């Protein structure tokens, strides 16, 4: 493997425009050298931004790094470029399964199956998902995966579709920075920590009900109609408040570096996940 990597690196150095970066990135990923793999994939993407395989490689590395939100974007992009890209379809199925959207996971595996009916890994993934085990990550890394893998999500999904701790599974920073509360300020899912690492979930939840009531009153009395979001930039972080249902509130908190527009997109995704979870309750 090390020799392969050396040889592929040499080839890429000789011809930086070549597609050998795909094999090099994958070899590094399989060896667990994720930072190096990421650099190779990003450099390749800069040179070949419309190459679906490059987005697929990048997504696999991001998945190994547990950056599922960006991995989703990359696989989504790969499918937009090449709608029959089986690797990306399987990747999306994997991520949909991770967030408990079995229907979408099955639909993506079925689409992959239509493209490659003889690919045994697709049948295997479909069979595993039907057993409630979940499809494997498209090409698994040898490195053992900690808590947030398909295997660990299985227990949560198989019992009741979702459990509270996994309302936002698959979203970037799901365990610290996303909070779902009911209209009375009671926590439904997610958690918040301040800069010192202290758990501030309950105190923030208590304040949110008041913010929401005031936002609704303000929009109504000013003739602006129903409010649908409140974004704020703070000195040390940015927040976005939305209401997935009339009775629930969703707060997304991120560091100052994340622009409000991107935060709103993240909040939109989290809102959809929260809506699905709330509908199942």
């Amino acid at each position, binding site marked *: 493997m090390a020799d392969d990597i050396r040889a592929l690196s040499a080839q890429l150095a000789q011809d930086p425009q070549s597609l050998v970066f795909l094999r090099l990135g994958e070899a590094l990923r399989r060896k667990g050298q994720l930072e190096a793999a990421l650099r190779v994939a990003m450099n390749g993407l800069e040179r070949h931004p419309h190459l679906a395989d490059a987005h697929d490689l990048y997504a696999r590395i991001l998945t190994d790094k547990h950056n599922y939100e960006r991995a989703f974007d990359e696989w989504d992009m790969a499918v937009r470029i090449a709608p029959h890209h089986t690797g990306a379809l399987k990747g999306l199925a994997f991520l949909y399964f991770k967030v408990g959207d079995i229907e979408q996971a099955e639909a993506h595996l079925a689409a992959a199956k239509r493209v490659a009916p003889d690919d045994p890994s697709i049948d295997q993934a479909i069979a595993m998902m039907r057993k409630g085990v979940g499809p494997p990550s498209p090409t698994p890394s040898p490195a053992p995966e900690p808590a947030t893998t398909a295997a660990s999500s299985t227990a949560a999904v198989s019992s009741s579709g979702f459990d509270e701790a996994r309302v936002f599974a698959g979203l970037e920073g799901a365990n610290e920075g996303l909070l779902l509360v009911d209209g009375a300020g009671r926590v439904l899912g997610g958690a918040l920590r*301040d800069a010192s690492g202290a758990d501030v979930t309950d105190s923030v939840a208590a*304040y949110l009900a008041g*913010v929401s009531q005031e936002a609704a009153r*303000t929009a109504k009395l000013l003739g602006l109609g129903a409010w649908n979001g*409140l*974004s704020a930039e*703070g000195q040390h*972080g940015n927040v976005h408040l939305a209401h997935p249902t009339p009775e629930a509130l969703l707060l997304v908190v991120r560091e100052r570096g994340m622009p409000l527009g991107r935060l709103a997109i993240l909040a939109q995704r989290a809102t959809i996940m929260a809506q699905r979870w709330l509908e199942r309750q």
Partner: protein
Amino acid sequence: MSKALDMITRVRGVRGAMLVSAEDGLVVAEQLMEGIKGGAVAALAASLAGRLRRAMDAAGTGTSVFWHLQAEQGALLVVPGGEAAGSLLVVAVTEPDVNIGLVRLELLRVAETAV
């Protein structure tokens, strides 16, 4: 101050701009289109700003430097002027399809220069 608010109301889609006392929700200066009740905007913006400040303090994100309430038929955008400015809020009421980024820049500029 009215001239400073001009910078905000010149942006297409802005229906009004105001300077509001954050502590008591009273109007300090205003430039509003007909039909917008300045007193109500000031009181509601100050009240919401107070609640939001407490929530953001609890979340550890620090004092807000800009916030934006999005609604079906418009938006309310606010830049708190800070303690040095005697806790004034620079407020804009807009149409729903306004260029938020541009209004934000003008609000921040007014907060820096006029407040």
